[in-house]
């Protein structure tokens, strides 16, 4: 079989299995929901100032949703950046770009395989986190009906479906973060700079959103798109924020991805 981008993708996933940072991110995705549920068990009552915060004692389905809200601030961008920011820069660090670029794969194939692997990692982390939060939440508060943001009661099976779709909608801004991580990873040649840079970018956008006078930008900030899933939990479903998330995230992600691709294709591999 002739090698291609999928060959790179499979090997990138295999390499991730041998690296500590992989388990750091996935570990956080698993441990955070468990700690959260443990904390609310002691406190009796969740955070009251966020959506679904009051509901976590009544339905386990509210737990993953509250974690999605908190995780958007820095946890999920960081987990995503851990791999996306590293996946090209680590080759620079190890000096292995020259090793793999002198085989039978074009640079475009190598980049595509890496981008797919970084996206896969982020998706796995979010879904894993959601699954753990669901299980832990239901163990603590039961698989009970959920109150939507419009005040209507949603049955437990329907609520489960909405949580799963919410997780999928949450992946839209996460994939934009993957693209930004890849761009920084490709242009900085430095894993730490790319990971921190991606996180800083995400935090800066949140800051812009709360600056006085810049509120008008709010709907177009990447950070805002992390709340798009809330449209699903309204009756009737509000698709507007989800559609906006799709194109706003594309505007952030695609230029970053395209830029990273072009830089990777043309750059001189002089180090290592």
């Amino acid at each position, binding site marked *: *079989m*002739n*090698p291609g981008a999928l*060959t*790179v993708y*499979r*090997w990138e996933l*295999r*390499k991730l299995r*041998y*690296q500590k940072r992989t388990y750091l991110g996935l570990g956080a995705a698993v441990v955070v929901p468990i700690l959260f549920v443990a904390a609310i068990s002691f406190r009796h009552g969740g955070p009251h100032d966020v959506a679904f915060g009051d509901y976590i004692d009544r339905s386990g389905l509210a737990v993953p949703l509250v974690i999605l809200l908190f995780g958007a601030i820095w946890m999920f961008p960081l987990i995503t950046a851990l791999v996306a920011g590293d996946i090209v820069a680590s080759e620079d660090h*190890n*000096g*292995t770009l*020259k*090793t*793999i*670029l*002198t*085989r*039978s*794969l*074009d640079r475009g194939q190598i980049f595509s395989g890496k981008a797919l692997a970084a996206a896969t990692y982020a998706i796995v982390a979010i879904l894993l986190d959601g699954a753990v939060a669901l299980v832990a939440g239901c163990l603590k508060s039961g698989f009970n009906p959920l109150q939507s943001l419009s005040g209507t009661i949603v049955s437990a099976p329907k609520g489960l479906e909405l949580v799963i779709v919410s997780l999928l909608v949450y992946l839209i801004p996460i994939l934009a973060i993957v693209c930004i991580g890849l761009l920084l990873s490709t242009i900085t040649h430095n894993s730490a700079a790319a990971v921190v840079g991606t996180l800083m970018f995400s935090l800066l956008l949140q800051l812009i959103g709360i600056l006085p006078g810049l509120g008008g930008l709010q709907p177009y900030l990447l950070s805002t798109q992390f709340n798009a899933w809330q449209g699903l939990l309204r009756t009737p479903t509000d698709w507007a924020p989800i559609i906006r998330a799709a194109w706003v995230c594309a505007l952030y992600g695609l230029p970053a991805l395209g830029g990273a691709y072009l830089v990777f294709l*043309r750059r*001189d*591999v*002089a180090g*290592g």
Partner: protein
Amino acid sequence: MADDPPIEVRGLVKRYGEILAVDDVDLTVRAGDVYGYLGPNGAGKTTSLRMMLGLIRPTAGHVRLFGRDPLLGVHALEGVAGFVEAPQFYPYLSGRRNLELLAAYDGHGAGGRIDQALATVELSGRAGDRVGGYSHGMRQRLGIAGALLRAPKLLLLDEPATGLDPAGMRDMRLLIRRLADEGMTVLLSSHLLPEVEELCNRVAIVRTGKIVYEGAIADLKRGAGATYRLSTTDDERAIAVCRAQRGLGEVSIAHGYICFSADAAAAAELSQALVEAGALITLLAPETVTLEDLFFSLTEGDVAARGDAAATAAVPS
């Protein structure tokens, strides 16, 4: 296609801002050559090799590998393998896993050559260990194994013996010799003269990015002519005699001796002229020219003059 040389480099230039790392390099490696790319550290050897492998873009000029341009895609690297600077691998994977990855990226049945490649570089016993724990020499050997997976017709090796202990260097030379004997064309960059003299049939000598000699080692040595050292009872008079004598090359003083190049007949005539002039000979000895002498004369002297001298001298008259 079949007639295209394994490597053809024309007018190759790489400029980094003000620095001219590679300055108008031309060279041709023919099938079956073991070609030495020789120069001091920082002469631009590695930069040239990176351009040959398509890792960096030339500022000007071009490289052709079997007639194909490595900038136009990896198909130009079919039948080509090698490494620049120290070969690098994923430290958290074992030697074998690293080779499995490279074989997967090679396709074309490379995976079936892993055991053979490991055996060739004598790493079979350590293949299961993480590369992070390998010594420099083991990584160097793994680099060769990685190159062999591609069953190359052309092997480019950048300073393959650098950093190895004497036994490692000897093993590396034996290995390269064996691969060359099996019909592989090899380009070998090095600053180690004995290595090049022992292994290579042709050389390019490079100094601050410029080629100062390209051709067969034998021609280089022959063309340089014999150099003589002379000492007399009256050196001042002897120098005047030497300068006036026909058939002698440039006359200079080095380490207290008068030095010049000449053939045997001219040296014999000189001895008579010296005696007639009253400068009695205390020593007149031909010096053996080693590649090392030529190398230093080409890389440390006035580059233009020496380079031209070598170029003209390299054509046997």
